[in-house]
């Protein structure tokens, strides 16, 4: 198969001006991959800076509640900056150090990847610019605040839908200008080769740990593994621990207001996506018949994206990964239940995985185990969640804070 391809998906569709940059990146990445000390260093950084391995928490209350499969939760929320995004950025950071570059850029939607990159840049001493759709800058102000405090420059992108895909375009525009000094820290397993392969490699740390942990704790392989799928990095991360086993892998996409409403971000589940090529790679994109990308919707900003990892498109096409979708409403219900029964607060993104697991666990045998990948923590989502719950005291609080500022 052609390098950078997964079945018919993937590739490296980059402007000629980035050709050399990609050659260098591929070279550095392949050298790192061939050098076992690199992975060792990566593991050490993740242990020393980001509390890895993250636990695999046995959810005894949820297990009891559903009375079916044994439920385990992989705790990516306990990473530095509160999500699996840390794995990817720290890995790329190490690579940037090797390449001798001094400046990193990133796109961000929800802001999680931006915060993670800003963190990494502060830690490694890189200059950092984060591109973020203007809509997202407005919606995700807390993350913008932290990025700035971490020393990053956040550039609001005013093109297109002013969301994630536009931020990616703008990051590429920066890169084609300053490629000599700059590495573009792509935030998920998408984009041109080597990004999907490379990000998947860094995220494989999740699956490697989870595999060891489930055998330790459950004594055998899980029956199923659930992960939410935005770009797909947390999903591929955890799935890689189980690809060669008889384990069913379930990716849960953003069903938004319902697959039949048009307001969702499901590429694999449902029939609104089609093969396409943009942002540097070939995958299933949510697009119209002319090939124009369309607006997506999800309560979870991190799942609100038109494309999906080419690796997942391939695994989906081959039937190795089953795709499902969770609606915004289902997500809030699963979140509520998880908070009350286990005391953990999954991110809205992660809650998608919980939805599907909850649908299936009751029909499974207590002898079987399932793993839900909790890709991040939900406290970052307080503005969205409080709004979604229509919490009156929160409204009052925000109004009084605002009045304080108006004085």
């Amino acid at each position, binding site marked *: 198969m052609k390098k950078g391809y997964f079945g018919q998906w993937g*590739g*490296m*569709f*980059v*402007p*000629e*001006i*980035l*050709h*050399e*940059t990609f050659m260098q990146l591929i070279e550095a990445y392949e050298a790192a991959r061939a050098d076992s000390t690199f992975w060792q260093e990566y593991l050490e950084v993740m242990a020393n800076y980001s509390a890895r391995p993250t636990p695999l928490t046995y959810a005894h209350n949820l297990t009891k509640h559903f009375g079916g499969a044994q439920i385990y939760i992989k705790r990516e929320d306990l990473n530095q900056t509160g999500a699996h995004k840390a794995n990817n950025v720290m890995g790329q950071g190490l690579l940037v150090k090797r390449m001798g570059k001094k400046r990193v850029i990133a796109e961000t939607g929800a802001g999680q990847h931006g915060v993670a990159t800003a963190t990494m840049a502060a830690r490694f001493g890189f200059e950092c610019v984060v591109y973020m759709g203007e809509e997202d800058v407005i919606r995700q102000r807390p993350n913008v605040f932290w990025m700035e405090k971490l020393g990053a420059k956040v550039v609001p992108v005013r*093109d*297109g839908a002013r969301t994630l*895909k*536009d931020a*990616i*375009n703008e990051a*590429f*525009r920066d890169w*084609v*200008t*300053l*490629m*000599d000094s700059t590495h573009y820290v792509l935030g998920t397993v998408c984009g041109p080769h080597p990004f999907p392969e490379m990000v998947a490699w860094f995220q494989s740390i999740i699956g490697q740990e989870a595999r060891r942990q489930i055998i330790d704790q459950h004594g055998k392989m899980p029956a199923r593994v659930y992960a939410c799928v935005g770009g797909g990095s947390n999903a591929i991360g955890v799935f890689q621990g189980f690809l060669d086993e008889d384990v069913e892998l379930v990716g849960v996409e953003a069903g938004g207001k319902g697959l039949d409403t048009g307001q969702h971000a499901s590429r694999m589940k449902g029939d609104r996506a*089609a*093969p*396409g*090529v*943009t*942002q*540097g790679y*070939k995958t299933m*994109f949510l*697009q119209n*018949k*002319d*090939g*124009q*990308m369309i607006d997506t919707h999800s309560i979870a900003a991190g799942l609100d994206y038109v494309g999906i990892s080419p690796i997942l498109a391939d695994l989906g096409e081959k039937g190795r990964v089953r795709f499902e979708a969770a609606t915004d409403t289902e997500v809030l219900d699963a979140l509520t239940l998880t908070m009350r029964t286990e005391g953990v607060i999954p991110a809205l993104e992660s809650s998608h995985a919980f939805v599907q697991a909850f649908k299936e666990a009751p029909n499974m045998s207590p002898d079987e185990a399932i793993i839900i990948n909790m890709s991040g923590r939900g406290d970052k989502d307080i503005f969205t969640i409080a709004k979604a719950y229509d919490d009156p005291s929160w409204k009052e609080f925000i109004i009084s804070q605002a009045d304080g500022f108006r004085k």
Partner: protein
Amino acid sequence: MVNVGVNKIATQAGNIRLMNNLEADLRDRLNKKPILLMTHLVLGYPSLDTNYEVIRQMAENGVDCIEMQIPFSEPMADGPIIVAANQKSLSKGITVEDSFQFAERVIKEFPQVNFLFMTYYNIVFRYGEERFIKRSTDIGIKGFIVPDLPPEEGETYIRISKEHGMAPIQFFTPTSSDERMREVAAIGGGFIYCVARRGVTGTKLELDTDLVQYLQRCRAATELPLAVGFGISSREDIQMLTGKVEMAVIGTATIRLVDEKGADKVASFMKKLQ
């Protein structure tokens, strides 16, 4: 391979190189003037009617090539002005079908101009590569400029384009090694689009020693005509390029002109340039 409209040409090294329709036409024109002119516009921006008017004035004022950009929602390689034009065009509802029909009309009406389609690969891909190239050929398009389709990914596209006598325009860039330039040139047809500098479209550049050296490298790497643009807006800019490259590209300048002063001013702008 069906060598539709491809001429043979002797290279300096004495080899035989295939020369397609577009290149042949450009060489003809170069017999009559020292440097050619290519302009750019975004279909549907500000409207197809204005596009028509602009093209008419360009055609009547000696423009050799026009790249008509079929708008795309993710114009990754473009600068802010063209990005905005893409969006506005799309938001007015222009479709790929509209673009084809419009192209067909202007190609017919202005046969003195070489028309090219500029767009992003997804537009071609979704339409169907073969179908897209076939229909373009049928209506008289001379070549394609697809900035997000590098030669490695464009094998089929290049093959089919060439089969139809179409020029799959390739790029040289300041970051390209000499070797890479030769590689790309070997695949390309029509002319080589020399990206003048790092960055996206739309910023004015000085013709400094770096740029001169770069153009020398470009020239050394291929015998295809070279096209270059770097915020050209005056006759002097173009004169400076004469003898260095075969074609000057006016990119953002006309869009800005039409935005600011209206389509009427295109004719006089084109005249002033030459």
